[in-house]
């Protein structure tokens, strides 16, 4: 008797569990999505999630709750590989999204072709944040290697943003008169000699520079630099745009294995498509990321001055090549630190 009631309880529990995870959701029951993202996108996705949830409720009558997780891009990718149930991944660089495919087959290899612009709905670039009034007169990359100038950037081994910083510096050196691989290596080596602290992520570096008062220049995402000047006071920092920088394209993707298991594919795909709508692009621009949409870009043109930008594909032959050459063990970054 007791046994059969225990069995019944088990069946009931199993039903409840399978219901909560089943694809057949009735309209009106709340759905949750988990967006696993990188460090500086907190504010961006807070705004986007709110707007999309409202739109989704109006469109389908279904309440939606989007949870966010933030951290260093590499760490976040690893968490998804290790089993974090992310419906969508919105990371700092394509290399980390690629890892979801190569390390764990969570997404197909051609994930980047599934959405416009290589699945990168917004872009950013690398700029310098300096102390108010620019006391060390830092105008371009070349000024960063002067003796006595301290530069703050995270460790490219652990931070996606830091890899963009590194490659932007490299690209600038290549574009100097007489620039080649050797001069670029010499320049970047000199640059990292001026780095007193290597934090593991972009936010850590911002804190080191802004709160701890370390360093004369912070190599930062443009969005992070704009946010820092707005939030921490425009009277404390200036933004310096170098002559050359890099076009950073943080990609987004649905995590196929997870959405198929949880039955959230439709809604996750709609969420990512929303990023490309004019409403989504507007929010993106308001949060200091460069929008793809021409009309929105026009509207916010004053916020995003035009720069000479290299792309990872043209200058470095794509992320896989760049990663192997610069950041893998024994690569150029390791050589800089004497290996």
């Amino acid at each position, binding site marked *: 008797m007791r046994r059969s009631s225990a069995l019944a309880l088990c069946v009931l529990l199993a039903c409840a569990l399978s219901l909560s995870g089943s694809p057949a959701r009735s309209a009106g029951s709340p759905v949750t999505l988990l967006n696993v993202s990188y460090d500086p996108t907190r504010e961006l996705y807070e705004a986007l999630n709110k707007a999309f949830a409202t739109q989704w409720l109006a469109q389908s009558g279904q309440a939606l709750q989007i949870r966010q997780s933030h951290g260093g891009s590499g760490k976040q990718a690893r968490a998804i590989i290790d089993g974090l149930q992310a419906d969508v991944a919105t990371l700092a660089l394509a290399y980390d999204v690629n890892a979801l495919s190569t390390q764990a087959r969570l997404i197909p290899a051609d994930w980047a072709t599934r959405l416009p612009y290589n699945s990168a709905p917004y872009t950013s670039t690398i700029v310098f944040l300096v102390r108010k009034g620019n006391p060390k007169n830092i105008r371009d990359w070349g000024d960063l290697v002067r003796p006595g100038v301290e530069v703050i950037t995270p460790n490219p081994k652990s931070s996606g943003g830091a890899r963009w910083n590194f490659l932007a510096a490299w690209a600038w050196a290549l574009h100097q008169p007489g620039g080649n691989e050797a001069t670029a290596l010499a320049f970047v080596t000199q640059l990292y000699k001026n780095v007193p602290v290597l934090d*593991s992520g972009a936010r850590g570096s911002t804190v080191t520079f802004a709160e701890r008062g370390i360093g004369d220049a912070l190599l930062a995402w443009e969005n992070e630099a704009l946010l820092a000047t707005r939030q921490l006071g425009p009277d404390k920092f200036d933004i310096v745009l170098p002559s050359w920088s890099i076009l950073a394209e943080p990609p987004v993707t649905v995590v196929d294995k997870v959405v198929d298991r949880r039955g959230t594919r439709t809604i996750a795909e709609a969420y990512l498509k929303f990023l490309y709508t004019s409403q989504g692009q507007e929010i993106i621009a308001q949060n200091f990321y460069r929008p793809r949409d021409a009309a929105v870009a026009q509207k916010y043109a004053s916020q995003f001055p035009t720069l000479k930008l290299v792309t990872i594909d043209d200058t470095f032959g794509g992320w896989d090549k760049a990663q192997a050459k610069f950041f893998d063990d024994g690569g150029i970054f390791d050589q800089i630190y004497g290996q």
Partner: protein
Amino acid sequence: MNQTALALSPAPAGVSASPGTGTGSRPSARRERAAREFRVLPGFGLTLGYTVLYLSLIVLIPLSAVFLRSAELGPEKFWQVVTTPRVLASLRLSFGASLLATGINAVFGFSIAWALTRQRFAGWRLFDAMIDLPFALPTAVAGIALTALYAPTGWIGQLLAPLGIKVAYTPLGIVVALAFVSLPFIVRTLQPVLVDLDRELERAAESMGASTMQTFRWVVLPSIWPALLTGVALGFSRAVGEYGSVIFIAGNIPNVSEIAPLVIMTKLEQYQYSQATAIAVVMLTVSFALMLGINGLQLWAQKRRRQR
């Protein structure tokens, strides 16, 4: 051999020996009952079962997973990974800074424990409670607080900066953070021993004409030596594995201020799981060897005391 065994665990050996030796001719049933009366916890089989199961689940299985994962590399690659200059530098830093921090704590932790047990000053209970703070505080919070204090703009940092002393973002900062997290281990292991220390012995030594240094060296130190070593061992193992507080204050420059746990984290973030576990295996092995050494030293000290 037998003598060593007695020295190893004097209390239980004495307890279990007495019914056996004293009641040699009595019926075995009574002997069993006598033995049973000493048991506080249920049967030996059950407790051993629990011990093995619990140790396996909590310690052995996770640790063997680490070893298995690193074995994927093969011996040649394993050696190559753990002997790269960057990894070696980080291991040297982790173990060196931990040794230094626990060494400093052995001295100051002892004086704190001494003051708290021998002196009754205003607010000693408050100080006593404060010793546990490093246990309770999330280490990241400790790291952020220490960095804010010791950064060139911080309260202490700006006093040290004109003297040319940099603490935050240097190996010195790592020692400070490790001293912080390992302090309670030493104080808390010394305190009960100091409380139990028979002050009559010190008075006797004094009345026999011993100087304070002599009393300390020949009366106090031998009694607290094993506890001090235990405290140092605990503090040291905590310091070697410490990650949270150190990364904030370290600066994390490869070959200079990058600790081994950070190298492990970095390897993980580059999806090099087996390389990360290889470094972990080296840390485990070195720590284990050091622990064994300290335990051996303790035994030796105990044995010597007993012989005297």
